[in-house]
């Protein structure tokens, strides 16, 4: 089986597992989410007809007449149609609408800052590893401590220093609320201005992991025979560092992207809360605080799909940059 | 007399025959050399005889000193193995004592025999306390030989026992093996890629190529007058300074 087919199959399996977990969790745990939801719905003036109840039961189980298997099939059917139910916290909006409104904010913020952090971390790590034994070594413990700091705490510190203290950045929000969201230059500028601090939080917290990993791999790669050969060939230091050492050292960082991405996304979600950023993280917390189970599950699924998708892209990229994986027959 | 008979031994990996219908017999007091290049299947044979790898087909029959077949659970009392790399075959975490006491106890013998075992391989008893990283390659391989002797085994599979050692100590380890073989009347399977030591160290030679035995016979006959074209190429490729210089001054 080719590398690409195997990878696609793996992510399909992971997707199925996530979807099924989402179905199983509310059924396994104590409590009666459907009743709580129906009560909430009533408070908000929603219709409490049997159809609404049936829809929540398909999603969350508990009670109901049909078998679990029928519920499962109906649940999968709803998912395929993009029907994730009605949100009670944003009633009468549908879950899919709430997600559609907030997802772009998170994708842009987390996507760009993760990419930036990866590139910066790997780049710095390559230099720190190559120049081992110089003052640059101090960067390693410094950034490692930063990566052990909770994201949201760093966000609090940055706000109190740069926003409250110096007034350089806005305290919270994703854009200036007097503006109408749209593709106007003014709005985009405001969105970028508001995004700098959250992005800085994510970059500072996550860069240490990339830097340390890359630095360690650089050090290992530097004692490989092919680097020795490159030196014996009289190649320039720059070429040896980039084409020979870093080119090989970066492979584990790319392969380990999956593990790191999960951490970054988790941290970013809580960061959004601190900044009251209009992304999916804030919505998830809103859902949690309001027992909006439908929204919560919808967001979990969307985040998982986004992370799986990003990992699939990275894995396909890995196949491109390391020819050996394409020829290997075993599952990694 | 203990004998180990291998009949029609075959091992298939992913439809490739690593070992293909190999038969031979090891008898007490004799050394058989199994010669071949890497990938010829010789190590797979060693691992099948050591019960580390299950054969795809064929049988391995062990006959005890009483002439009766040895039951499977007693097999390891009689057949032991020496591995190629003495740096990998000793656990870095454990002392020499552990490496010898465990097989002694597993085969119903007392750990008090450890000093005696060390003596058999020309090491002093104080080696028992040391750990592998404190030993040289030759010392490690001696410990590995002692470990193989610990259960009182009469059949020893030696898989390239000296190829990872420094050249100047190889002869010492081979001579030790030869001495033990004579004194304990062992049946030894000496696996090697080196034709010259195979010739000097064994009674019979089996030449392997791509999983099959292509030539067999008394060592001197096979290696000095090879019949099979592959054996001939192998012999011709082995560096031999004698062919370049006529022996003058040296007797």
């Amino acid at each position: 089986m080719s590398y690409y087919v195997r990878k696609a199959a793996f992510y399909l399996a992971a997707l199925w597992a996530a979807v099924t977990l989402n179905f199983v969790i509310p059924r396994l745990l104590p409590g009666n989410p459907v009743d709580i939801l129906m009560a909430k719905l009533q408070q908000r003036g929603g219709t409490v007809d049997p159809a609404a109840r049936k829809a929540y039961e398909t999603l969350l189980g508990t009670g109901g007449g049909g078998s679990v298997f029928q519920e499962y099939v109906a649940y999968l059917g709803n998912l395929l149609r993009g029907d994730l139910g009605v949100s009670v916290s944003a009633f009468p909006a549908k879950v899919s609408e709430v997600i559609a409104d907030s997802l772009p904010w998170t994708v842009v913020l987390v996507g760009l800052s993760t990419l930036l952090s990866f590139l910066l971390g790997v780049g710095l790590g390559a230099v720190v590893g190559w120049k081992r034994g110089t003052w640059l070594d101090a960067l390693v413990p410094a950034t490692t401590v930063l990566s052990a700091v909770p994201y949201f705490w760093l966000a609090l510190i940055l706000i109190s220093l740069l926003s409250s203290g110096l007034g350089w950045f806005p305290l919270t929000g994703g854009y200036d609320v007097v503006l109408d969201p749209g593709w106007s230059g003014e709005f985009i500028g405001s969105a970028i201005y508001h995004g700098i601090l959250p992005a800085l939080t994510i970059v500072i917290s996550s860069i240490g992991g990339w830097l340390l990993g890359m630095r360690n791999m650089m050090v290992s790669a530097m004692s490989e025979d092919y680097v020795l050969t490159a030196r014996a060939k009289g190649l320039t230091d720059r070429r040896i560092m980039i084409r020979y050492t870093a080119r090989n050292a970066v492979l584990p960082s790319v392969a380990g992207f999956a593990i790191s991405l999960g951490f970054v996304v988790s941290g970013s979600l809580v960061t959004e809360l601190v900044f009251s950023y209009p992304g999916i993280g804030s919505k998830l917390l809103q859902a949690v605080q309001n027992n909006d189970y439908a929204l919560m599950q919808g967001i979990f699924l969307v985040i998982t799909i986004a992370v799986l998708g990003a990992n699939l892209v990275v894995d396909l990229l890995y196949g491109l940059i390391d020819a050996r994986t394409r020829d290997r027959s075993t599952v990694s | 007399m203990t004998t180990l008979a291998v009949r029609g031994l075959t091992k298939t990996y992913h439809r490739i025959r690593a070992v293909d219908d190999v038969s031979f017999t090891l008898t007490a007091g004799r050394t058989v050399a199994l010669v071949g290049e890497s990938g010829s299947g010789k190590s797979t044979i060693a691992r099948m005889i050591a019960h580390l790898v299950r054969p795809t087909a064929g049988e391995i029959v062990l006959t005890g000193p009483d002439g009766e077949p040895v039951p499977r659970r007693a097999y390891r009392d009689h057949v032991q193995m020496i591995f190629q790399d003495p740096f990998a075959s000793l656990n870095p975490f454990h002392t020499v004592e552990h490496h010898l006491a465990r097989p002694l106890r597993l085969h119903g013998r007392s750990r008090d025999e450890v000093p005696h075992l060390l003596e058999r391989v020309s090491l002093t008893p104080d080696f028992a306390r040391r750990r592998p990283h404190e030993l040289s390659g030759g010392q490690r391989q001696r410990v590995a030989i002692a470990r193989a002797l610990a259960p009182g085994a009469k059949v020893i599979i030696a898989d390239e026992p000296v190829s990872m050692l420094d050249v100047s100590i190889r002869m010492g380890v081979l001579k030790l093996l030869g001495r033990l073989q004579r004194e304990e009347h062992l049946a030894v399977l000496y696996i090697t890629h080196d034709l010259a030591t195979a010739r000097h160290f064994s009674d019979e030679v089996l030449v392997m190529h791509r999983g099959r035995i292509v030539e067999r016979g008394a060592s001197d006959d096979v290696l000095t007058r090879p019949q099979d074209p592959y054996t001939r190429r192998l012999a011709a490729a082995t560096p031999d300074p004698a062919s370049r210089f006529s022996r003058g001054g040296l007797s």
Partner: protein
Amino acid sequence: MRPKLAAGLGLAGLIVLFGLIGPLLTGDPATIRDIGLTPPSGEHLLGTTLTGQDVLAQLASATRGSLWIGALVAVMATVLSGIFGIVGAYAGGAVDEVFSLFSNVMLVIPGLPLVIVITAFVPPDERGTWNIALVLAITGWAASARVLRAQTLSLRNRDYVAAARVSGEKTWRVIGVEILPNLLPVLASQFVFTVVLAILSEAGLSFLGLGAANSSTLGTMFYYAQNGFALQREAWWWFVPPGMVIALFGGALALINFGIDEIINPRLRDRPRRKRDVVAVEAEIAPVEPDAVLTVRNLNVVYQSSPPVHAVKNVSLTLRRGEILGLAGESGCGKTTLAYAINRLHRPPAEVTSGSVTFDDVDVLALEPEELREFRWVRLSMVFQGAMNSLNPVTPIRAQLQDALRTHRPSMSAPDRELRCAEMLRLVGVDPARLGAYPHELSGGMRQRVMIAMALLLDPQVMIMDEPTTALDVLVQREILNEIKRLRDELQFAVVFITHDLPLLLELSDRIAVMRDGEVVEYATAEDVYLRPEHPYTRQLLASFPSLTGDRGALIR
């Protein structure tokens, strides 16, 4: 002990001590006073909260709570990762496939969102510390399992595991006594990693109000600080200290992990960088024989470790044009160090302390870095042991052949470069169509041929070959040796051929130097070394190689 490990253990120990003893000394963290939000003072070292509770007292009990959760999660997650990582990898086959698929799926599903969903479904009054810890463990073991699996896979194929099985050890003993102790550093490092991760995750969870009911952790401190608008009220003393504790603890555990990493992988140890590779350069170049291309005089190389190791002692050699000089010796005799020093490829802590290396008219030891770079490969090229690792695994061989031309002959046009590479491959008997191949697509013999082609690209006068055929089978070795002899006759370059295989050198070389403990103990023509060896060590080496054709029996039996 390694300094980083000691510092990390010390710092982590202090924090654990603070969590254990602090709550006993700082009084009741819940006591409410009417002095809300006072800044740090003598009475309240870290100030008070909105309701006048002492922040230091809260910090102490919160530290204890977080450490407890961290330890609980780490123990549970380590057990889980051990089962899925170690047992799966040892069992192999279908069990391993299923276990590893399961771990990988758990790994790619983002952890915190899953934890949030699970805990949100648990009614608040049922969210106990143990339940939270269990959820964090279930969602946090997969990364460790992956690491443990990789490590176990490499350990289970070690010969000592096979040897234990041959001795008749039972499976559980092989795992517990032979494999597990060697996994301890990795297990420790994963445990430490999980503790940090659990404390961070719990802090995030509590910050969202999803923590364990009635618990006091660093996360709940954040939660109350956030809900008490500590940020807006600029009560930094309320939310800074818990973050500092986490950061310091995380930093301490990271230091511990550095320490463990350095134990596992000695390459990562700190090493001061030396500026010079050559300490003293002879002012005058020693007189050179007329037909000599490479002259080494009284060369000394010392590894400046403690104690210093004198690896090459007063070595003098002369390589004549077109000559094959054999350098024989066993591992650790200094032959490779000598070869590297000739081309100044030795790395710190190795230093050339005295002597000279003269190449034609070039004083190699006096070259400036840029001159040295231009000298390498153009005048002197090298072929190393095990072409397996000498070729860059991630680029096709074309790029690796071409970059020597690109660097040393910048004016050469792209088509000419391609032609030259193809010509050299043909010369060593490799089909030029293989230019696009990656190293792993070639056999060992082919790779070594490609290395030789690369070494010939710039028509060097000297080629140093360090054990070029040791990793190869006899038949392939013979082909490569014939190739070297043929190319030498055709192209008239000189060769320094380094190996432990004396018979091979006797057959191949014009002259042979035998090295032992850094010294050249015998230096003569191949014929003299074979027929009239002078040094006892040479005789011992000669006796170590029984002959295939000579008399039999005298050696062993």
